[in-house]
């Protein structure tokens, strides 16, 4: 196993409080070490509960580079199993999502129950009890915990409970889930795309308000005036706060922190038709206002180290592929059991910005691609993360807060990165 110390004379040559060196994006040895030291040693997001609502529902996911199956068993309990047969290692599942009553390996037919126990071995008389103890050959299962619908898994049995790992981020997750508008939050499909760059480039971006007015100029040109003003992120009094353990929150639209507040405020012009449609369906004025406000999404991004963000109106999941390749999923969310019109409005907003054909994501992907390309030069140079550093305010518990365009969230993430990588 490569340690950070072996990659460089001292870790400080590679990573400091307010800057990191270029090999963090380009060195395959660092990438390999990250997959072990970070992704095998922390809580990694694998699913939202609504992706596997019923017993028997499953989906494929990854923890680092390791393929897993997230499955709800017959009793409703969620398991995360390594997607690997105990016989000779074939994947049990190559279907993205679905419903099943057992997991049967296509190679020699070993069958497992949804909780991971080995149940059936064809032509079992080729083994005796000594060579095949079924109890020893359950699927490798990870530890699973859930917070407010977010399911995380870890290979480690001895790290802190998920709730402690999330810490101050929990309050923000609760606020984020208010965009169910009175209904539970439900996933509505996803946009997946790939860019030829390191995963940390996207990790940084989720807490980078600085780029928005420039990179997303063409999106801002395409939206209505009211929305454009709302998205004038650098002038709205927002802030970035370090939430501990590498997590952070970036508040871009402070009046959209709590979607239960300001319900009496006028309904934005772009939602006037939706409000009328909902009222015509018989929803009360209060319900309509609450739903319409929820449709617009939250005014903040929560970056949860290392692989997921609750980002304004969707989940953003990053999947490292190799040192210079990353897959991103933008999972649309809506109201489970809520009015179709409200969910349609959310879907259309998602399509507008996100995904390979959105008016926002391709521009993000382009600049990330350029970061990776630029990083092919100047190995010895620093990536600057010092924006807003001097003016950072310290909170009583040692966390930090700064203005919205500060790189405080990235510094929080790299703090955690360094803690985990120097072990």
């Amino acid at each position, binding site marked *: 196993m490569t340690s950070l110390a072996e990659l460089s004379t001292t870790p400080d040559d590679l990573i400091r409080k307010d800057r990191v060196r270029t090999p963090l994006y380009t060195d395959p040895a660092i990438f390999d070490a990250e997959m072990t030291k970070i992704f095998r040693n922390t809580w990694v997001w694998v699913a939202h509960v609504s992706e596997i609502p019923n017993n028997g529902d499953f989906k494929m996911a990854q923890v680092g580079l390791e393929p897993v199956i997230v499955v709800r068993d017959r009793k409703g309990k969620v398991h995360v199993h390594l997607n690997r047969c105990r016989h000779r290692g074939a994947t049990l599942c190559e279907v*993205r999502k679905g419903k099943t009553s057992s997991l049967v390996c296509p190679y020699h037919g070993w069958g497992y129950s949804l909780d991971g126990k080995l149940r059936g071995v064809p032509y079992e008389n080729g083994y005796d009890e000594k060579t095949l103890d079924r109890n020893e050959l359950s699927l490798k299962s990870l530890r699973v915990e859930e917070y407010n619908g977010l399911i995380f898994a870890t290979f480690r049995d001895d790290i802190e409970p998920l709730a402690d790992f999330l810490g101050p981020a929990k309050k923000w997750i609760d606020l984020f889930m208010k965009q169910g508008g009175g209904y539970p939050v439900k996933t509505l499909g996803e946009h997946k795309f790939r860019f030829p760059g390191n995963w940390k480039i996207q990790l940084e971006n989720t807490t980078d308000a600085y780029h928005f007015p420039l*990179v997303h*100029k063409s999106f801002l040109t395409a939206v209505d005036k009211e929305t454009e003003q709302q998205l004038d992120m650098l002038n709205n009094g927002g802030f970035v706060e370090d939430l501990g353990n590498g997590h952070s929150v970036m508040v871009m639209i402070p009046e959209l922190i709590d979607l239960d507040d300001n319900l009496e405020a006028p309904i934005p012009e772009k939602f006037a038709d939706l409000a009328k449609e909902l009222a015509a369906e018989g929803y009360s004025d209060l319900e309509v206002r609450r739903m319409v406000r929820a449709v617009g999404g939250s005014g903040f991004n929560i970056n949860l180290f290392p692989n997921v963000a609750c980002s304004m109106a969707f989940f953003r999941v990053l999947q490292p592929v190799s040192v210079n390749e990353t897959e991103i999923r933008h999972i649309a969310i809506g109201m489970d059991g809520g009015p179709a019109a409200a969910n349609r409005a959310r879907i259309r907003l998602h399509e507008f910005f996100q995904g390979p054909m959105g008016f926002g994501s391709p521009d993000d992907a382009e600049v990330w691609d350029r970061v990776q390309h630029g990083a092919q030069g100047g190995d010895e140079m620093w990536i600057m993360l010092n924006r807003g550093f001097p003016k950072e305010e310290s909170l009583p518990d040692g966390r930090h807060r700064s203005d919205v365009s500060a790189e405080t969230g990235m510094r929080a993430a790299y703090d955690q990165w360094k803690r985990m990588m120097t072990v």
Partner: protein
Amino acid sequence: MTIPATTSLPVTLAEAMEFAWYEADLLDHAIYDEWLAQWTADALYIVPIEPGTTDFENSLNYAYDDHGMRKKRVERLLNGQSISASPVALTVRSLSRFRLLQTDEASCELRCAQIITEYRRGRERTYTGDVTYRLVRGSTGLQIARKVVWLINSTEALGGIGYIL
């Protein structure tokens, strides 16, 4: 265009093919004003994600464009503000394997294969899929009432697509 505006005969495969190639040519050569004019007022341009989707309106798509969104997409390609579209990707699309699924005097349903090769910033990429057109006879000839692009890899991770499929 030489396609007759009104006739009592069903739309033929030849007419429909000629129209689809014409649209492809407009897009590859960035003749967007003319392209925007080829659609009926309530037409939709759709790039779905899930194969076999029928309820596009209530599903998440890659694109679900009415006239307003098509116009915005064109503006984005032309106004130089989008970094992923400056320079804009060069495209060449090849349409073949045409089949009329339905036809009458007023309209037809055409299905064909489409392979687009994109070139941009030293990189060449290909997107392959089926296209289904709903074409209707307007006063000036055929018009698009609906175009759906079914990418064969729609459920996989795609690259940024900074142009119109």
